[in-house]
């Protein structure tokens, strides 16, 4: 992550910012110019930092404060209770149910999505006619908002005469209880995420594939590697950073899924994720705790725990991919060294 920053400062050739002002200016003008150079950068970045501090960082930190109090939505701040809210939430089976649902839906959406996106990107990486048309066609679902996607798929997966059950009926299969069964509802919700994001991720991966130098493929082809072999031993390793990036963003987004479970089946239990909470995700539980049960203290505890979970998974992802990359680097180096040795040995 930091690699970009450690690059030599782009402006190293530039004159020092507070250097002499051009031409022969009056001293006060020179001083004004120096002040301009010194202060301007801070002035330019301050709107971001000030606003971000107020609406981004402060609420996040204050969540910790709220989570340590009895705090009612209507009555406001109550007693300080220390870690009591956390203890309650960690012993709450609805909380663990929501974590299970979130992770299950996340895995059901992330894993197939990445494989399909990879395949799609590989297909789009061919020398197609009407390139832009095909790219636009895979991106189409992205412009349908999650709320609209959910309304559409809620209808598609309706248990009485929804599109999917109708099609299953044609093949003589029994209708599936998409909104009542735990696993089936997870698949239905994951399919909404997949539908909207697969093409988008395919385009990101496609961009990475197109950045792979073509002469590598050339030499591999000359060495007799077929297209499949080239895909797995050249394309995939070359686009790994992008792949990791896609996985990390999918994780951050996927673990905060809300709209889809909120609106998937509103008719039972008012949209808290199914009558038996069979598809209640953690953010949905947070929402229920804050605005249905009106317990802001406990809701903040949920937010804080989810926050920690997401950051931990993000870090894990990051270090794992670092390890894999460096391990690979080592084995590559060894292989190169060996090949070089053989080559030299063969010649002498």
């Amino acid at each position, binding site marked *: 992550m930091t690699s970009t920053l450690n690059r030599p400062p782009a402006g190293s050739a530039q004159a020092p910012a507070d250097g002499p002002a051009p031409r022969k200016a009056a001293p006060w003008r020179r001083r004004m110019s120096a002040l301009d150079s010194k202060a301007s950068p801070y002035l330019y970045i301050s709107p971001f930092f000030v606003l971000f501090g107020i609406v981004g960082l402060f609420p996040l930190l204050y969540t910790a404060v709220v989570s340590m109090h009895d705090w009612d939505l209507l009555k406001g701040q109550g007693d300080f209770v220390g870690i009591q809210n956390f203890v309650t939430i960690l012993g709450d089976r609805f909380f663990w149910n929501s974590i299970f649902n979130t992770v299950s839906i996340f895995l059901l959406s992330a894993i197939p999505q990445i494989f399909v996106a990879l395949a799609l990107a590989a297909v789009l990486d061919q020398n197609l006619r009407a390139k832009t048309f095909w790219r636009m066609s895979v*991106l189409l679902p992205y412009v349908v908002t999650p709320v609209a996607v959910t309304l559409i798929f809620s209808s598609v997966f309706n248990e009485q005469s929804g599109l999917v059950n109708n099609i299953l009926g044609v093949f003589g299969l029994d209708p599936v209880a998409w909104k009542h069964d735990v696993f089936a509802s997870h698949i239905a919700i994951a399919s909404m995420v997949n539908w909207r994001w697969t093409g988008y991720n395919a385009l990101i991966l496609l961009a990475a594939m197109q950045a792979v130098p073509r002469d590598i493929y050339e030499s591999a082809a000359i060495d007799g590697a077929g297209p499949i072999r080239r895909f797995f031993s050249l394309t995939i390793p070359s686009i790994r950073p992008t792949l990791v990036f896609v996985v990390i963003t999918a994780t951050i987004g996927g673990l905060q899924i809300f709209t889809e479970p909120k609106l998937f089946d509103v008719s039972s239990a008012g949209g808290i994720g199914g009558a038996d909470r069979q598809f209640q995700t953690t953010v949905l539980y947070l929402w229920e705790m804050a605005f249905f049960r009106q317990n802001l203290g406990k809701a903040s505890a949920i937010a804080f725990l989810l926050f920690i979970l997401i*950051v931990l998974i993000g870090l894990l992802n990051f270090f794992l991919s670092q390890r894999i990359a460096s391990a690979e680097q080592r084995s590559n180096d060894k292989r190169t060294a060996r090949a070089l040795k053989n080559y030299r040995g063969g010649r002498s």
Partner: protein
Amino acid sequence: MTSTLTEAAPAASGEPAAQPQAPARKRLRLRRGAGDRPGFLVYGLLTAFMLGTAYPLWWSFVVASGTNATRGETLPLIPGGNFLANAATVLDAIPFWKALGNSIIISLVITVSVVVFSTLAGYAFAKLRFRGRDGLMIFVIATMAIPTQLGIIPLFMVMRQLGWTGELGAVIVPTLVTAFGVFFMRQYLVDVIPDELIEAARVDGAGQFRTFLTVAVPAARPAMAILALFTFMTAWTDYLWPLIVLNPGNPTLQTALGQLQSGYYIDYSIVLTGAVMATIPLLVLFIVAGKQLISGIMQGAVKG
């Protein structure tokens, strides 16, 4: 994370469509020997994928233009004639036009703010030298990986304290700046503006801000357009936060649409009509700016 952006940034300066053309053609000759164009299988697969993904959308339109009974058909393909009647029902059920107007206002204000502040900060991080620059930039990157949306409860408390709940301002203010925007603009500007140009402007006696306006902004324009597009999309699609701070009488398009889905009896042809109506604006945007959207994603734009 950064690699996607750094790799792709130079590509942004050229025509996005034209640039890959030449190497791609050469590459294919190498990759597949004699054949230079992929065969029918590839087009067949793509067509199947396209039809498969587009069908749910088409199906919604077919049901939206039919009656609730249309939904019972197995694979309906032909739209009926009820769309306008259903649309009228939607307009009765939810304050559609008000919601549309609110969504437009909210998304536009957020977009302008994010683009302006991101360009300013991104330029400073990319091209100006100041104490603490690298540390602050690391901070910006780190916040991108942090789910700040989880601060919604204190944020809600603040908005209520200010008496802003129910007002559009409550939706707008929390997203006036994004760490991603700053990062995106910095990555773009670091490569695209030659330092000599800034130097030249300074030698000519232009102040810092003048230099920013005359050198940085024109150079940043393509990236600003992409950032604007994505910021607009993100603001437009947001559901959780408007649901919390706005009331049903003054909704955004997304929260209004959500209202259609409530109640024990759901007339799906009405719900789907609403979904189709709400999709039309973005569909138009997609047709007009689809190419930019694609090149934006391919330059490493990230989901919001």
